[in-house]
């Protein structure tokens, strides 16, 4: 039970139950869908970008606790950030959920997902929303898949 708590931390359970920015942005400047073919989970992310800054970001969709919480935490982390920083943050986040390296600074709450590294089959859940944001920024039409 204890090691499960490392994965399912309070913050994650809370964001799963009450996801932040869980809504549609009616006229987003950017939008994309992400699917996890393994489980059929699908999320949509919406961004409103002005002068290279993410003014608003939101998501919709159904997923497991890890993918929902990760999406919710991601929207909090990215709101107000310059678009240029997304790629860098995604990389840092990806490292945290896949490798044993020290948690990079500046990830803030996102680092609660570090427990995912002990559950290799769940890494895709944690990165689904990020893949979708990347696809939105690249203005891709087809839904991105995690594999």
């Amino acid at each position: 039970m204890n090691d499960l708590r490392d994965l399912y931390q309070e913050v994650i359970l809370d964001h799963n139950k009450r996801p932040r920015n869980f809504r549609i942005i009616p006229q987003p400047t950017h939008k994309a869908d992400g699917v996890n073919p393994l489980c059929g989970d699908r999320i949509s992310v919406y961004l409103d970008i002005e002068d290279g800054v993410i003014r608003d970001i939101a998501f919709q969709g159904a997923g497991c606790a890890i993918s929902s919480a990760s999406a919710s935490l991601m929207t909090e982390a990215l709101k107000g950030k310059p678009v240029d920083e997304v790629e860098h943050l995604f990389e840092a986040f990806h490292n945290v959920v896949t490798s044993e390296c020290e948690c990079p600074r500046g990830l803030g709450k996102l680092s609660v997902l570090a427990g995912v590294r002990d559950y290799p089959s769940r890494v895709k859940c944690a990165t689904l929303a990020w893949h979708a944001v990347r696809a939105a920024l690249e203005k891709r039409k087809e839904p991105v898949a995690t594999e």
Partner: protein
Amino acid sequence: MSALHALSTAPVAHAGLDLARIRADFPILRQRVHGKPLVYLDNAASAQRPKAVIDAISECYSTYYANIHRGVHLLSERSTAAYEGAREKVRAFLNAASVQEIIFTRSTTESINLVASSFGGSMVKAGDEIVITGMEHHSNIVPWQLLCERTGATLKVVPFTDAGELILEEYERLLDSGRVKLVAVVHLSNALGTINPVKFMIELAHARGIPVLVDGAQSVPHLAVDVRVLDCEFYAFSSHKLYGPSGVGVLYGKQALLEAMPPYQGGGDMIRLVTFEKTEYADLPNKFEAGTPNIAGVIGLGAALDWLNAIGLDAVAAHEHELLDYATALLQQIPGLSIMGTARDKAALAAFTLQGVHPHDIGTILDREGVAIRAGHHCAQPVMQRYGVPATARASFAVYNTRDEVDALVKALWKVKELFE
């Protein structure tokens, strides 16, 4: 055996089965995962193999392996005899009329693709219809969609009720169009556990002169199948769900139909005479077995059938039925849990959702408790869409599962609730 006791699975005999002995036949079950005794409840995805199967494969490779049907030497003769012996075992298992009606493939999936390509490619034309059901596995949907794309035929789908039972009036209505060239139906649904009334469905189709393919991937491990009683044209299954090795499948087909059908793949073993002008094909079943097959795998399947016959499918079915009833009763006591698939005629598995917890999270938490289940869409996305869920959790049973293992499942599910409360 001491390992068994260490795991305190304390098997109890049900329906005359000696569960302790049966479990002792499966080396893989004697282990701990994440420090807990392994409780393997993912049998619908793939079952485990008894030692008899592992030994048969090992014996083949260590004492008599050679290519079949071509050597004049002793090893080739022995391999050929063992391979063809397994064909006879499959014939007897299905009660087919002749070994010529038993074709070895790679899997259920390949068996269905063979029919879609060979039968479908030669007999289905633009404007024709293929009837399937709403509870098919992707492997009994996509080959027909591909066929329809190639030929201009149309796919028709029999709907089912909330309980997971096919609506047979709709089925009859679809059959009455006068354009149906084939019915393809799953015998036991891997997503719901429903046992479909295939015998009756075949009668309805035959009354209109329509042939029927039955997807038996899930049914053969759990219920005795007699293809002559069913009178189906085709029956497909996989070895790996039947305690045999992976990479081997079976297609049963009625001889006259198989004879009329063109080959599926071309190559060695499926010819009688090849010149650059013309090729004469081999007789059944070789016509449909191009190239060197999975020789040791087929022999392993034969060993699995021997092993299963020694226990008896009726005893297996009775034991699994009792386990399912026991599991269903306990699962229903968990608040927020709903079982998907409550057909009157049901076997071998319980698919469910738990309010507020995604099946993937259930799967991860259960795994840490040693309980292996499947979480996902079970390659039956249309079934998930029918119920409006992205996925389900599924516990599926085999002959070696025990009541104690059901208890472990249920206990772990209560932990899931505790964690997510």
